[in-house]
């Protein structure tokens, strides 16, 4: 009697092709992954975690209205505050630039910082921790998936704001401006990862505090005005919050020659602060994620929901 061959064995799937069975002498040997395999697995993790975020945009188009058009109107409200005060035109440019950058702050805080808390609540966090992947890959995948909508929102706020409100940028050093923008994003991602590690341990505190600190963070970051006007508070913000230092540098670079844009430090010095923040935040996040995972497992909080 002829034995039936399973169809999967006859035509191997793509997944079967990737995960070839390899006989090993012990579980320890099986766990010895090559560097290439580790990198490829983490890259796949990032793509896999970014995918639902990107495809979700296509499936639920209402975000275009609620997350792009309406936030632009919010930014417009602050433009009209300055118009009511008959402020110089570059102040309106500050509001437009700040409005664009809030998209990235929101992305980092809500889709990276608080995300592990959400995952815990939904029962996914323990699954993440049991897979052979880095949590930083998961977090970066989530944030990069959301970056699509954030970039679109920021670009529209900048372009439409410039057109509708007649903002004229005076940029002399495009390279430094682009570098500061990229460094602001990397420092923000590091900051978001540190928050994410803290929120693994926390329960509802994470969500409530993130929500409550949004406006205070905007205030000390000088979202709509030069942060130097806050004096000592602005200086402290520059040394702690990537949004504050990034905005201050970008404002100086985007409105060169305006007396109103005097920053706390020069744009070059602020770029160095951002480099330092990036290195420190990502390093601290790496250690903190491991430590918090260990603590959460030790204290049994990984699967604690609604806490």
């Amino acid at each position, binding site marked *: 009697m002829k034995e039936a061959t399973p169809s999967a064995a006859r035509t191997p799937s793509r997944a079967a092709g990737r995960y070839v069975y390899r006989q090993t002498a012990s579980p320890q040997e099986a766990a010895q992954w090559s560097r290439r395999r580790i990198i490829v697995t983490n890259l796949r993790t990032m793509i896999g975690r970014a995918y639902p975020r990107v495809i979700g945009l296509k499936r639920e188009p209402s975000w275009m209205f609620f997350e792009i058009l309406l936030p632009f109107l*919010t930014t417009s409200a602050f433009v009209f505050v300055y118009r009511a005060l008959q402020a110089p035109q570059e102040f309106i440019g500050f509001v437009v630039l700040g409005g664009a950058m809030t998209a990235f702050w929101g992305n980092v805080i809500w889709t990276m910082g608080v995300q592990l808390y959400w995952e815990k609540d939904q029962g*996914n966090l323990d699954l993440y921790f049991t897979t052979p992947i880095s949590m930083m890959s998961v977090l970066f995948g989530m944030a990069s998936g959301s970056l699509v909508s954030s970039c679109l929102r920021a670009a529209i706020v900048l372009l439409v704001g410039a057109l509708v409100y007649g903002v004229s940028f005076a940029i002399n050093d495009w390279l430094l401006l682009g570098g500061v923008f990229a460094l602001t994003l990397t420092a923000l991602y590091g900051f978001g990862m540190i928050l994410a590690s803290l929120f693994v341990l926390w329960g509802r505190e994470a969500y409530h505090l993130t929500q409550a600190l949004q406006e205070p963070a905007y205030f000390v970051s000088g979202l709509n005005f030069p942060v130097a006007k806050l004096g000592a508070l602005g200086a402290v913000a520059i040394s702690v919050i990537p949004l504050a230092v990034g905005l201050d540098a970008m404002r100086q670079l985007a409105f060169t020659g305006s007396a109103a844009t005097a920053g706390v430090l020069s744009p070059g010095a602020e770029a160095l602060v951002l480099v330092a923040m990036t290195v420190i935040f990502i390093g601290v996040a790496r250690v903190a994620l491991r430590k918090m995972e260990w603590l959460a497992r030790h204290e049994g909080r990984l699967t604690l929901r609604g806490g």
Partner: protein
Amino acid sequence: MGTMAGVVGSRARPLRTRAESLRDAWRSFGTAAKIGWQTESNWTDPLLFFIYSVAKPLAAVAILLVMLAVVSGGNPDPGFRAFVVVGSAMWGLVLGGMAGLAWSLLDDRERYRMLKYLYLSPNALLVLLLGRGAARLAIAVMGALITLGVGVAFLGVGFDLGRVDWLLLVPSLALGFVSIVALGIVLAAICMQTRQESWSYPDAVAGAMFLVVGAVFPLAVLPQAVQVAGLMVPLTWWLEGVRQALVPGSLSSIGGTGSVWAQLTGTIVPGSGAILLGLLVTTVVTTLGALAAYRWSEHRAKERGLLDQTTGS
């Protein structure tokens, strides 16, 4: 048999009188409000909760006051500063009221996964959502009062208890609360149809309204078409009513030279009667529209199986 008799004779019988229905709805509202308050407040100690409640509205006022100070070289117009403080404090209520219902719905569907059970219970889902939203509104009231207190004590808001126009203030507040809740119902109706990421929708809608209601600047600086849109929103009249009641004779958000109001009526600023009439008409229209939108949304959600659909991404 005894069990059957117990069920038949219990309060759970389907045919209830109108009075019993109202009593049950009130009890459901109270229970939901209690749960809402506990969800909002018992995650921390009272001190941190107090800071949490006031940090957001105070920071929002601080942003605007620094903007004023920066432009005016440190000497802002006291009248405009009072205008901003009162408008910004009251705006906290709008944020809390509008977000409360929508977030309760999203919480129960996406996180606690209880929405379908709540829907199946004998109480109207809307009553339960209103109860849950009431807790967030209560926290917003606390934030608004403290922001106003800070404005009076430290920011030079000219508030005199003896000059308060109570006949304008009380109905303005009552109608304003109704309109805020109505807008919250609209947001709940929208979020019932959308995905988990709609957490940000209430803030986005409130932020857009911030532009057209004269919360922190007079409508007269806006293009005329936008001013007309603003006059159709009850929050515009509510803010004007509360502002004129608390600080009589203060800068008007609706009127002023070059405003649509002045062109249409020939008067520079609206009087108390006009404010209350405008608020009443827009509130009634908004409330009826909100209830119709909610009814349609609930029906559609049931038809399409959205009540227990989780959409995490």
